């Protein structure tokens, strides 16, 4: 521990603390902007500069370590004046479109101005007209960029994608893809981790709200919505509910109030995914154990950011991916076939909307292959944040909504589907089903949670030895299944490099594109709670445990679907509706061009 004095107050802090951290321990807040706890500290904005006795210059408190005996002043005239000048520099060429900006009242730049006491700043500069870079998932407005570089850290250090970086220098510095190409042209995975950390309106999801409103207002269309598991663990935050509040029932109610004709649950799609993916896994492993040449490890394909990443970075490893579509695309395809037939509506008159915690799902829904006989699986994807905006603009009192349920026949789900939204969840769901199919018994873990793959470490591994395999699965008897789970593309890079090198020991790998899984996806509410991942994950695990049915294949409506319509898992119709194919790309889509 070290002792220092901040604003005359004696403060004790652990060794290695920054001035900012030490001040916080002493109850002193220092304004920051570019700083993002545990993620990003590069001292770019200098707003957190403080006076340190003996130092010639003001010191950036977010990066400078406190030392024993340090004397700091965070509120001297020198400091306050510098902050105000800096804030002035930051906002004078920033577009004054706050009232119409998507980040209005949810903008860190705005908030900083308020904190600093709305400083005077020099005359408004000429602000160039917007030149938006609109990709299917992410929209960039570089005029609103304050060059804090949080997105650069998210993309390069956290995700190790390297799609955006600073270009040019000095005043002409811009954050953009190489050579200022559009985001869509390069290796951007559309994961949206940059959007989540952006303090202003420079990086936003490409808005699809208007598309949805137009559909809802079209009397010709039957508008059918579904919501992903992670949405229910985070949407409440947009309405000031505590982080981690489960709002499943209110979500269903709100969607109905918005005017959707049917309110389905992506969870149902998740259960179907497990049946399809589990069957695929079992057949691959069976062949593998029998000595056939099949590609293992198999890797999950639910996360579109991850899928795009492997297409760019490891195009030769695509055969490892499961051929399953992601749950919402499966459900979209089922709505426009199974359900359309049931209600006798022309699928062309059905408009499917997915509410997703994810920006990449927008892009995914627009992939050429995401259709069945020319009919798009999903017509529009909105993020959790966009849904919150819709609910607010519709005047719905979300917090006081009466509880409601999802609609039959695509609304019932198992607990396994809920945990699709958190890292390790897809793996756990798949193993609950696979183990049960092989042995007829539930997976031998307390509360059905495979403990080693629960949590937020980058790479988690587990080994499960199969005992008591049924006669038709005798190859599996005594086999130790090796599995790995990762969330965030940095971890995926590690596991894929092992596969490339031929050293991967695993049978099955789960990859979620965002660190922590969908609960922390690029479309989720921005949280200031340091433990938001843990809290949202807990909500999903609670949701799972609250259900009677805990394994996907036990979902009676899923069983009915196969019996009535699809036939066998991985059968002909299932393949047509629920499976997809991938495109090798290379860094700049060069393989596409060939």
């Amino acid at each position, binding site marked *: 521990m070290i002792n220092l004095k901040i604003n005359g107050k004696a403060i004790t802090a652990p060794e290695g603390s920054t001035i900012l951290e030490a001040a916080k321990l002493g109850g002193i807040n220092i304004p920051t902007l570019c700083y993002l706890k545990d993620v990003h500290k590069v001292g770019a904005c200098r707003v957190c500069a403080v006076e340190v006795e003996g130092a010639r210059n003001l010191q950036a408190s977010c990066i400078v370590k406190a030392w024993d005996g340090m004397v700091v002043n965070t509120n001297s005239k020198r400091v306050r004046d510098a902050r105000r000048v800096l804030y002035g520099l930051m906002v004078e060429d920033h577009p004054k479109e706050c009232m119409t900006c998507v980040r209005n009242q949810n903008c860190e730049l705005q908030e900083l101005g308020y904190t600093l006491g709305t400083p005077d700043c020099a005359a408004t500069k000429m602000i160039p007209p917007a030149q938006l870079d609109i990709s299917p998932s992410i929209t960039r407005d570089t005029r609103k960029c304050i060059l804090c570089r949080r997105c650069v850290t998210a993309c390069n250090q956290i995700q190790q994608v390297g799609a955006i970086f600073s270009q040019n220098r*000095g005043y*002409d510095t811009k954050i953009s893809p190489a050579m200022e190409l559009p985001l869509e042209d390069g290796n951007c995975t559309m994961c949206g981790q940059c959007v989540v950390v952006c303090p202003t309106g420079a990086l936003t999801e490409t808005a699809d709200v208007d598309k949805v409103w137009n559909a809802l207002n079209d009397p010709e269309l039957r508008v059918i919505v579904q919501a992903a598991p992670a949405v229910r663990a985070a949407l409440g935050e947009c309405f000031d509910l505590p982080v981690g509040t489960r709002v499943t029932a209110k979500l269903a109610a709100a969607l109905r109030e918005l005017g959707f004709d049917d309110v389905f649950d992506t969870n149902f799609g998740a259960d179907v995914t497990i049946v399809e993916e589990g069957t695929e896994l079992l057949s691959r492993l069976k062949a593998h154990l029998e000595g056939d040449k099949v590609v293992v490890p198999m890797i999950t394909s639910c996360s579109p950011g991850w899928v795009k990443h492997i297409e760019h970075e490891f195009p030769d490893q695509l055969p490892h991916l499961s051929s399953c579509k992601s749950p919402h695309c499966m459900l979209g395809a089922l709505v426009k076939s199974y359900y359309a037939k049931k209600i006798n509506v022309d699928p062309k008159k059905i408009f499917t909307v997915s509410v997703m915690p994810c920006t990449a799902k927008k892009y995914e829904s627009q992939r050429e292959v995401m259709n069945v006989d020319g009919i798009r699986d999903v017509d529009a994807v909105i993020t959790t944040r966009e849904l919150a905006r819709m609910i607010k603009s519709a005047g719905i009192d979300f917090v006081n909504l009466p509880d409601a349920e999802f609609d039959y026949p695509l609304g019932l789900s198992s607990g396994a589907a809920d945990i699709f939204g958190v890292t390790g969840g897809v793996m756990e769901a798949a193993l609950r089903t696979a183990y049960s199919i092989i042995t007829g018994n539930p997976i031998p873990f307390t509360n059905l949670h495979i403990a080693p793959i629960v949590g937020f470490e980058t790479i988690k591994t587990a080994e499960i030895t199969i005992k008591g395999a049924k006669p038709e699965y005798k190859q599996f008897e005594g086999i130790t299944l090796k599995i790995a789970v990762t969330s965030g593309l940095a971890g995926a890079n590690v596991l894929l490099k092992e596969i490339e090198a031929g050293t991967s020991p695993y049978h099955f790998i789960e990859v979620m594109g965002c660190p922590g899984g969908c609960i922390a996806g690029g479309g989720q509410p921005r949280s200031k709670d340091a433990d938001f991942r843990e809290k949202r994950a807990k909500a999903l695990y609670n949701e799972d445990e609250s259900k009677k049915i805990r394994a996907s294949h036990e979902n009676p409506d899923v069983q009915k679907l196969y019996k009535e319509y699809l036939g066998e898992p991985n059968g002909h119709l299932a393949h047509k509706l629920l499976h997809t194919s991938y495109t090798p790309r290379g860094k700049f889509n060069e393989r596409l061009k060939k």
Partner: protein
Amino acid sequence: MSQLKISTLADLENIKRAFKESKQNYKKTVRVCGGAGCISSDCAAVSTAFNKVVAERKLEGEFYLVETGCIGMCALGPLVVIEPDGVLYVKVTAEKMEEIIDKHLIGGSVVEAYTYVDPRSNKHIPQISEIDFFSKQVKIALRNCGRIPYGSIEAYIANDGYFAMAKALNELKREGVIEVLKASGLRGRGGAGFPAGVKWESGYKAKGDIKYMVCNGDEGDPGAFMDRSILEGDPHSIIEAMMLGGYTIGAKKGYFYVRAEYPVAVERLNAAIDEARAFGLLGENILGSDFSFDLEVRIGAGAFVCGEETALLNSIEGKRGEPRQKPPFPFQRGLFGYPTIINNVETLANIPAIIVKGAEWYASYGVGKSKGTKVFALAGDIVNAGIVEIPMGMKMREVIYDIGGGMTGGKAFKAVQSGGPSGGCLTADHLDVSVDYESLSAMGAIMGSGGLIAMDENTCLVDTARYFMEFGQDESCGHCLPCRVGTKRILEILQRIVRGKGVAEDIETLSTLSKTICDTAMCGLGQTAPNPVLTTLKYFRDEYEAHIHDKRCPAHVCTALKRYLIDEKACVGCTICAKNCPTNAISGSVKKPHFIDQEACIRCGVCMEKCKFNAISVQY
């Protein structure tokens, strides 16, 4: 032929002796400057002419041509020095060379017409030892520059080259080198002035098996070319110093970071490294010891900020050239995360000489805490523009007048910018300041890396501040807000002022912005970028006020503030001015007085030039 490998001190001594003997029989040595300045004034033609004439006259055994590095008087190149006579010829051409061979080398009489003319006495001074420019200098870092052939390792060895390395290995050992350096008082010549011995000691003490030496040759100050001259003129001295550094701190690998704009330096450095490797001086088991070391040249893309040590490290690593937050300092976590010592070229150039001749000898030059000498690049409105090395403590007046020869065209001295764009200006009142780290800082300027830009009475200091700010803004890396945006705002205000659009609050705003940038920018570049504004505001505030309040440029530089006026009485209405005006700013009827629309006038002066009746005048 297999190259002789040097593995002992005796080998070095043999080479030294053999080299000297091989030159004994020549009657005269002709040194032709092959520095960058003289290359551009075509010294190659002089060498070619020499070789041709000497071959024609069959005098190969008598006269020996040496192509050297920079002799220093760059404005008067190509330079030729005849030894042992000690005669300097300036602005030599192929024809003049032939005449010098005939009359001086063969005939024995100096061709006075081609020798240096003293600007004050207007008399020829043939003897280099009698020219103030040379006689007042003390050459330590430049000891071999302009004297020995830059491309010959034997010549370097003959001038005690690589003897420092031998001394370090055989006598001083690692701790000994640090002691000598500390005692010498040598400080970093890149600008910051950090004691070199302390720096090496921190590298020596840093824990780890992998360490690096880095030579900062990314000299970027406008008008500065000290490091370039040393790298081009004496590359082996820097190689030897890097080896000494590597030995002392425990590094096996060193990097030279040289900017791409210095292709000659890169070429000569690479050739010298190859030569040293061929002689066994770089590589495994140097001079028979267990010390192994090798060097690699990395070329910088010319961003000014890459001269900042942490940005330089990023650049070597292949990353964007942006500074890293210090601490950790490079000696703790430097190149590729390993302890790294970074020295500037000039600092390194001093070190072998200090090791051979001793700390006491070096510390006998200089003053106070500023020991030894400093190399300066004299530029601007100065007669003897070029490279000089002076003992620290010399008066600025001596540097400008005795060595620099005063202002060109006999004009009055107005200011000198010391330390480049990060430095500050000094006025005529400061001419008696001692040139050393402490005295210059006390005046608001800095020693910097050694750029000295002299400005005469026709310089507008507001415009000069604008120039430096333009440079600072252009070279800002864009990482931190104050430097990226603040310098832009300062530049905009200065641009406005020199266009006559300044407003009363501008001075206050400039001062506030400058102080905030100095106080909050991340790296040295940003923290010092406003210095030219702050010092000109301090010493030439009246010029700012004249621009802002009176819309007048006292130095008559700022075009926008000129006003061309037609004297109604003198104008006869000949219309010639109106016909020639490129912007149709002049109106008036034939035989009636004409009138200039000041809004439309672009101040080109054509009207005044064309008027046959002296009716047009310019008002500043």
